Each structure stands twice: as C-alpha cells, then as structure tokens.
C-alpha cells in the first residue's frame, strides 16, 4: 500500500460526503466553544429554530474575558454579558460547560488536552486560531470563524478543501536553555509568517520526538503564526502515556484498543509531503522578538536589525514602522532592552512544565525593581498542582503576582493590560501592535527567558544561568 501521512489518514477517516467540484464534507469529532466567538452562532441557531446536533461532542469554557484577580467580579458590563450569554446558551442547548466555579475551567487549549478530550486521530475545531495546539496529539485541529462555529453546532460537519502538506523536520537535539518556544519562533523567523499558508504542517525529527506533550503543544500552538491551517505531530508512547487516566480518555481495555488505533495513525515511512523543510536543532538559540509580527525575531545574543538589511521596500517599511512602534534603535543588543512587564501565561506557555521551568530560574531570587511580573496558570488544575508543588510560593516569594487561570494579558480582553510604551517579556504568541494593550511593546520569549528578564530587568541569555531544582 502507498505510504500515507497522518494528515491523509485522518482526512480520509472523516469524509462524510465527497463530490467532484465540491470541498469534502468532513465530520468533526470535538467542538470546543468559548465566550467570544460563539454568541452570534447560537443566536443564528435560535433565529432559524435549529438545534445543536451533537452536544455530547461539544465542550465549552470561558477564558478570554475572565478576570484573573477575582474572577467573580467582572466590572466590564459588556464582558459580563458575554460570559452570561455563554452560560445561557450552554444551558439552552445542553452543552457541557466548565464555568468559573468549575475546577476544570481554564484556557480552552489547555483544558482540552488536560481532560483527555483531545485525542489522536480526532478532528477538532474551535472558534479560535490557536486550536492548532491540539495537533500535538496527532489530531487534525484548526481554528474557525463564527459562521463555521454555527455550521458545526448545527451539522457537526464542515466543508473543507484538503490543504497541502508541509513537513518540518527538526533534526538532532536542542542545546541547554533552548525550548520548544524557541524552535517555533526560529522556524517562523527563518521562513516567515506565510511559510505555512495553504498547508497543514507535520513536525517531525529527533528534537520533536524527544519533547514532552506540553512542549509539543507549544510548537503546534504557533503553527497558525506560520500561516498554517493546522500543525500536528504523529502520536507515540509520549502521547499515550500523557492520555492514560485522563478524565475523558478511554479506560481499561478500551484504552489499549485505542492505543492500537492511534499507533497506526502515525505517518508511514516514505510518505510524501508537498514540501519539506529540515532544520538542525543545534543551530537554534533562545529567541526574542523585536518587532510587531512573530517573524521579527533574533537570537538573544543578536541585535535589533537595520531596515536596510531587508530586501524588499515593503519589508523595509514594515521594519521601520515596527521599530518606531517598539521604540527600538537598530543595532541595540537584545540584552540591552529594558523590560517593565513580564507575562508568563497563555495557551502557548502556561502549563505545569512551563511554570516549573520558569520557577527554576526564579527560585531564591527577586523580581528586579520597576518590573511588574505576572504568572497566569493555564487552568485551575495547573494552578492547583503548581500550588501543591510549591511553585506558586517560589513565584510569590520572588515578587511575582500569582493569578487565577485565563487568557489574561495575551490579548488583554480582561483587565490585564500592558500600558502604552512599556516593554513586556511575554510567553504568549502574538506581538502585534496593540495586542497586549494600546501602544504596548511585546517581546515573545520562552518561559525561562521571561523569568530571567523579570529577575534582571532586561533580557539575558538563559544559557549562561544556572537553573535551581524545583521539584
């Protein structure tokens, strides 16, 4: 039989209807819902008297608007209404909801895997571009708009053309202090924010195989920043070990049977991709973005570039504009950029291993004077576990603010906003103008780089620091 990629296999398994001249009608196994992109979809159903076809394959939580200091006091009336609308809609249409009282609440892309809802071979959608995160499990997961949310609620399907396939192979091993976040930032930095447009990316290679599930989620999470429809990783023993015992994962004998099915999904030896990129892991250093899109980055030992270094007029203008927005001079060493804010959180880097890594840098030290540092765990479960392990106390002792779970300062839809003109070392995924607040200057980095920036008040090369054991 012709060798197939995991992308081909999952796609073929989900075709409900196929006809020449039309996209395929694909079945959706899991639909995750949050408060921001769903109200208009539910309203659409109501107007037409339609039902949710499979509430049992739908799961909702609130994350974007949730305050992280006192989650039950939402002072912004419009935000409060949006959260109330989700509660109402879930009740009316019979959809399970992890609400603000729930121990399962958290960022939708953190709780899906944590609860074992995310599984290999599933098609997963959510009205959120970072749905690509779930691809880490060998699922075909992608973000959709509100009209498509309504379509999935009503029919449990979507009309989709099959994208092309792009293999990104990370050969060899990562160096000390270099993380999954640096890998994905390096990929986007080298190949651009459009490299994945029209593709689904499969990440392969030794460096990926050696990664934990949480690191793999960080990589797949930012596939969208590379323009890809989705990013995924073939499942292996690491995947199965993570899923065993999770609330919604199959149990007992069923689990073993599922593992056999999941194992068979992995891309076959010799499978063909439309495009392949190979990267040597040892060439990747800790990364810092200096501009206003995720490709505008350099290694921590680099400098802010000159616009003239870029080829096209369009790029030069974009760089000039970005540097003006960021308040940075060409030629400035990255380690000379002062940082006033640090945000450790978001669907990219707010899981337990992220917090452990950050705590190992912070332990026994103090946040630099003039720096405000936040840690926002990705879910209530992450929060609880981090408190039980003593991580929370390490952060608090160092002068960090320890918060409740939510999307928080990644996009500032709740009160966590970075003030105009201030630099923020952020473990989130987007450094667009105004993303963290009007005029806020975001630098995307890994959790260890963010933690180190909090302690020193500027970026430092974590390869030169010693991490303390934390657990």
């Amino acid at each position, binding site marked *: 039989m012709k060798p197939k990629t995991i992308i081909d296999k999952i796609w073929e398994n989900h075709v409900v209807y196929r006809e020449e001249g039309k996209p395929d009608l694909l079945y959706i196994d899991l639909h995750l819902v949050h408060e921001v992109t769903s109200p208009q979809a539910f309203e659409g159903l109501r107007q037409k008297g339609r039902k949710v076809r499979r509430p049992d*394959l739908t799961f909702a939580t609130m994350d974007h608007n949730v305050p992280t200091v006192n989650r039950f006091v939402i002072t912004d009336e419009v935000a409060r209404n*949006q959260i109330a609308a989700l509660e109402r809609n879930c009740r009316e249409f019979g959809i399970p909801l992890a609400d603000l009282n729930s121990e399962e609440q958290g960022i939708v892309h953190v709780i899906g895997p944590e609860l074992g809802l995310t599984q290999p071979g599933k098609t997963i959608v959510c009205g959120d571009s970072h749905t690509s995160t779930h691809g880490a499990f060998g699922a075909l997961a992608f*973000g959709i708009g509100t009209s498509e949310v309504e*379509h999935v609620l009503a029919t449990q399907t979507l009309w989709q053309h099959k994208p092309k396939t792009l293999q990104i192979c990370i050969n060899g091993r990562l160096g000390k202090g270099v993380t999954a976040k640096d890998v994905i930032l390096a990929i986007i930095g080298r190949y651009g924010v459009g490299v994945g447009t029209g593709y689904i990316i499969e990440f392969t290679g030794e460096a990926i195989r050696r990664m934990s599930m949480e690191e793999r989620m960080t990589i797949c999470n930012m596939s969208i920043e590379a323009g890809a429809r989705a990013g995924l990783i073939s499942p292996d023993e690491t995947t199965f070990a993570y899923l065993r015992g999770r609330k919604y994962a199959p149990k007992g004998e069923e689990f073993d049977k599922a593992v056999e099915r999941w194992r068979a999904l992995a891309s076959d030896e010799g499978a063909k991709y439309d495009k392949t990129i190979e990267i040597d892991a040892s060439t990747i250093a800790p990364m810092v973005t200096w501009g206003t899109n995720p490709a505008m980055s350099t290694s921590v030992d680099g400098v802010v570039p000159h616009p003239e270094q870029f080829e096209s007029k369009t790029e030069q203008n974009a760089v000039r504009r970005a540097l003006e927005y960021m308040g940075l001079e060409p030629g400035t060493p990255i380690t000379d950029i002062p940082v006033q804010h640090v945000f450790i959180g978001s669907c990219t880097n707010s899981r337990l291993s992220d917090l452990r890594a950050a705590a190992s840098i912070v332990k026994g030290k103090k946040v630099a004077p003039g720096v405000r540092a936040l840690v926002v765990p990705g879910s209530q479960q992450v929060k609880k576990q981090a408190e039980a392990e003593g991580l929370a106390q390490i952060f608090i002792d160092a002068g960090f603010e320890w918060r409740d779970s939510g999307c928080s300062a990644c996009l500032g839809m709740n009160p966590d906003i970075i003030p105009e003109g201030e630099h923020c070392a952020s473990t989130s995924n*987007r450094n667009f103008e*105004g993303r963290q607040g009007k005029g806020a200057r975001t630098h995307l980095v890994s959790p260890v780089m963010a933690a180190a920036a909090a302690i020193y008040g500027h970026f430092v090369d974590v390869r030169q620091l010693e991490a303390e054991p934390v657990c």
Partner: protein
Amino acid sequence: MKPFTIHRGKTAGIDRANIDTDQIIPKQFLKRIERTGFGQFLFYDWRYLSDGTPNPAFELNRPENEGATILVADENFGCGSSREHAPWALQDYGFRVIIAPSFADIFYNNCLKNGLLPIRLDKEDVRYLLRQSERADYELTVSLEEQRVFDDEGFSRPFDIDPYRKQLLLKGWDEIDLTFVYEAHIAAYERRHCPRP
C-alpha cells in the same frame, strides 16, 4: 448572506503587508454579542488618535478614500486571530471587496461566509491598484460571475475562486440549509463512527 454578483466602487489602498485582525478590529470590541455595528471600530487604533479624533495620516481617513468600497492591501492580509468580527467590521464600514496578493486562511474563509469578496491578484497588479487608489476618482468593477476585475482604463485581470464558494456567493445561500441536504450521509457516518451515547 447577501448575494454578491457584480460590484463597482471606489478603491482605498493600505500599502502594508501582514495586516492582522488585531488591527482590523482591536480586542476591546470583541465583547459584543451582536453581529452588527462593528464598522465604527474598524482599524480603531490606526484610525483614531489617543484623544479620539481621526488620525489624518491613516489611509482610510484621507479625503480621496471617502466612500471607498474596495480595499487594496499587501500580502497576508487578515493574519492572526480567527475573529469573524474582522470581516463584519470591514463590511459594516462599507467594503464589499478586499484585494491583496495573499490572505490568511481563516480570514479568507470568514469573508466568503459573509458575502465580502476576497480577491487574490499578482503582486504587480496589487501595486498598480495601490498607486491608482491614491486618486480620488478611481473606480474598479468586480464581476464574480466572470471572475474578473477591471477598470475603465484598460486594466482587466481574471481571479480564482473555488466554484462551490462562488455559487454560494452568487446565490447568497445559507450554507447550513445546503448541508442539511446531506443529512442522510451525516447520519450514516455517525452510525459507523460516532454513535450517540
């Protein structure tokens, strides 16, 4: 969905690449639960100065762009978040067509679902249209039926669109109604792969 057949209108150009959805509609306006009324917030942080007055330097605030219904921009337009509020805002502001060398994937789909036509043209053609857009009197015609963009001065280019999406746009059909036609196929798939509990 409002059908799209043929449209003639003024163009406005924003000569930037990678215009992301956070710029098109900043996050503070995503909390509303309606589909309408987002046009007033379009490009908010670029369009208004800190004191709330229009920023005269921003392209859409220039007098020659008043009343424009066709937006021209550089590559990777609409990258970033999946927020459908972005096409809602563009449409509510008055745009019917967006022309760029390339679009972000989710944004492109979201436009098609709302009767806002995204058109990919070659980079050189987009450069030409960006230059023409600096004139106050420049108009373009977009025929979806013919899949062609043309002006009165000899510029005429074909464009690609998925035939299925084209039909939906021309007719203004509700996609969910169409999908219900395949209900028996969906039910059969569910019996085989995904039985109800």
